[in-house]
C-alpha cells in the first residue's frame, strides 16, 4: 500500500511538472517498436543495429566513388518496402545538390529490390493481388519526392520548406540530402557565417527527424586538410559540423573492397563491415578472396579517413597537463 501511494505521488509529480516531457521507460517501449530501414547488406545492418534508425540524423561520409549516392538511393528505395514484407512502407524525399541522382540507376535498384522481395516471400504475393500491383518499379519511383537544388540559398530554402511539406505528406519516412556540403564549400568567405548557417540547418533537421518520426540521411564529401606537415583526408565542413549528427558512418576502400565504419553512435559500439555495390544495389560483400582483414591494417586505413580531431588528441595533451587519468568505457 505504501508502494502504491508512493507511485501515485510520483505520477502526480510527473503530471504537474513534466507533462511536457517523456520518461525513459516510455521512450524505451517506443524505441523497441521502431522499425529500421534496411541498407540491403546484412553486415551493414548489423553494425547499424538493424538498419538506419528513424528519429535520428545519420551522416554518411566517404571519398568519391565509394558508393555514398548508391547507398542513398538504396535507402530511398528500401524505405518503400511494404509493411507486410518487413519494411516501413513509407515514401522518400531526395534532395540532390550535385545532380548525381541517375533515374535509370534508381529504376535498376528498384527492380533489384523487388526481385529480392519476391525471392524472399515467394507465396505471399499470391494472396493479395493488390500487394503485387504495388511491387512495380514505377510505383517505387513515383514515391520518391525529388528536389534539385543549385545553390546554398536554395538548400536553406528547401530545408525551411520541408517542415510544411512533411506536414502535408505524412507518409515520408526518410529524407536523403546528397550531398550536404557541396554548396557550402565554395563562395563562402565568411567562415563564421557558414558555421552559424550550418548549425541552424542541422538543428532544423534534428527537429524534423524527431517531430515527423523519420530518418534523415546526410551524405558528405571528404576533403584534404594540411596538418602536422602532411595532407590528411577529413570529412568536409570542418570541426563545427562534427557534432551535428546522431550517427556517423564512414565509407572507405580497403584494398579492393568497400568497408563501412560506424564512427559515432549513442548506443552502438564502433565497428566496421564490408559491403558491395552490385547491379541490384547495395548488397553483402562476397568473400571471394576469403582473406581475413587484419585488424591493424583496417585501423590504419580508417586512420587516414577520420576527422582531424581524432588525430589531434595528442596536441590537446601537450597543451594541458595534470589530472589526467585513463577511464574505461565499456560499450558492451
Amino acid at each position, binding site marked *: 500500500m505504501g508502494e502504491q501511494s508512493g507511485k501515485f*505521488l*510520483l505520477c502526480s*509529480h510527473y503530471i*504537474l511538472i*513534466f507533462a511536457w*516531457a*517523456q*520518461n*525513459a*521507460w516510455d*521512450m*524505451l517501449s517506443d*524505441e523497441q517498436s521502431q522499425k529500421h530501414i534496411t541498407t540491403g547488406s546484412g553486415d551493414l545492418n548489423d553494425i547499424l543495429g538493424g538498419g538506419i534508425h528513424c*528519429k*535520428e540524423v545519420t551522416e554518411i561520409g566517404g571519398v568519391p566513388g565509394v558508393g555514398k549516392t548508391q547507398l542513398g538511393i538504396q535507402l530511398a528505395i528500401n524505405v518503400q518496402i511494404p509493411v507486410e514484407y518487413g519494411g516501413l512502407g513509407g515514401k522518400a524525399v531526395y534532395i540532390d545538390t550535385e545532380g548525381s541522382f541517375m533515374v535509370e540507376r534508381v529504376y535498376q535498384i528498384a527492380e533489384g529490390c523487388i526481385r529480392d522481395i519476391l525471392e524472399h516471400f515467394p507465396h505471399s504475393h499470391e494472396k493479395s493481388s493488390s500487394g503485387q500491383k504495388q511491387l512495380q518499379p514505377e510505383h517505387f519511383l513515383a514515391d520518391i519526392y525529388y528536389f534539385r537544388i543549385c545553390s546554398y540559398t536554395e538548400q536553406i530554402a528547401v530545408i525551411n520548406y520541408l517542415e510544411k511539406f512533411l506536414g502535408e505528406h505524412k507518409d515520408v519516412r526518410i529524407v536523403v540530402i546528397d550531398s550536404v556540403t557541396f554548396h557550402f564549400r565554395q563562395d563562402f568567405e565568411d567562415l*563564421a*557565417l557558414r558555421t*552559424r548557417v550550418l*548549425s541552424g540547418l542541422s*538543428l532544423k533537421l*534534428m*527537429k524534423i527527424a*524527431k517531430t515527423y518520426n523519420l530518418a534523415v540521411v546526410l551524405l558528405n564529401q571528404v576533403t584534404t586538410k594540411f596538418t*602536422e606537415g602532411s595532407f590528411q583526408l577529413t570529412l568536409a565542413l*570542418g*570541426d*563545427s559540423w*562534427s*557534432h*551535428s*549528427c*546522431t550517427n*556517423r558512418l564512414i565509407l572507405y576502400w580497403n584494398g579492393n573492397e568497400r568497408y563501412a565504419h560506424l*564512427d*559515432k553512435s*549513442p*548506443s552502438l559500439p*564502433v565497428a566496421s563491415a564490408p559491403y558491395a555495390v552490385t547491379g541490384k544495389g547495395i548488397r553483402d560483400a562476397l568473400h571471394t578472396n576469403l582473406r581475413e582483414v587484419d585488424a591493424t591494417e583496417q585501423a590504419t586505413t580508417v*586512420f587516414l579517413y*577520420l*576527422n*582531424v*580531431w581524432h588525430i*589531434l*588528441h595528442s596536441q*590537446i*595533451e601537450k*597543451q*594541458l*597537463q*595534470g*589530472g*589526467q*587519468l*585513463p*577511464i*574505461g*568505457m*565499456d*560499450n558492451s
Partner: protein
Amino acid sequence: MAAAGGGGGGGGGATTSGCGLKRRYAPHDQEEETMNQDQSSKEDWCGRLWNGMDLLKDVTENKHVLPTGLEGIDTLLGGGLRQGQLTEVTGPSSSGKTQVCLHSASHAAVKHMGVVMYLDTSNSFSPSRIATIIDGTNDLSDQRRFDLPHKERLKTMMRSIVCKSVFDIFGMFEVLHQLEVSLLNDKVKSGGRKICLLIVDSISSLLAPIIGGKYPQGRSMMISVAMILKKLAYKHNLSILVTNHMVSAGNGAVKPALGESWKAVPHVRLVISREHGSNICTATVLKHTLLVFPLAI
C-alpha cells in the same frame, strides 16, 4: 502611507484611488519603503544573509555529490557532480561526451537520488543504452528493492529519467522557465521526488547558430542561459552537467567552443578524448573550483 491622490506621474507612495487601482511607486521613494519594511521582504530583495558557519553547515549537510558511475571521471571531479554547481564536459566528436551524460543519468536513477532531467539537442538520448547501463551496474546493495522482480526495478529506475528534446535557444529558455516555475511551486508541497540532476546535451549546438558575427545578441543569450542555469543550480540544489564541442584554434589545434565568455561560467570543466579505434577515453581537467591541478597553459 497615504499620499495625496494627485496626478499619476508626480505622486509618491502607494495609494488607492476611488476605483481601487494602485498607483505605481515613484523610484526615489522605493528605497525608503524597503528600509521601513520587515526583515523577510529584505530577503526577497537581496537574498538570504549567510555567515561562514551557516555555509559550512549547508555544504556538509545539503550539498551532496552525484557520482557519474565512471571511476576515472569521478576521481577527477572529486567524487562526482557537485550539487549547486555547473559541470562542463567538452571534447571532439565521438569522444564519449554523450556516454558520460547517459552514465550520470543512469547512476543517479540506480541510486534513487531523485529525478533526472535530460535535455537533448541531437536525438542522442538512447533509452536502450540507459537500460543496458542500468543492467550492468551492481544494484544488489539496494536492499529495499530486492524483492521486486527485475523488470519492475528497471521500470522504477527508468521512470525517474525524463527526457525532452530542444532544438533552438528559445525552446531552451521556455523549458528552463517552466522548470523554474514548477520547482518554485513544488517548494510548498511535500512528497514526491525532486529533481536532482539536469543534463544538457549539448548546449553548444543550441548556441552555435547565434554566436559570432557582428551583433552581440548571441553572446548575451549565452550569458542569459548561463545565469539561469546557475540560478537553478543554486536555488534548487541541482547538479547541472552540460556538454560542449571543440572548434579549431588555428594551426590545426582545437579548443572548446563558445569562446572566452563561456570559460568563466562552469565551475568544473573537463576535456575528454578517445583514441581512434579503441574504447579507452582520457579525461583532463581544465578548471576546477575545489581541487588543484597543475596546468601549464
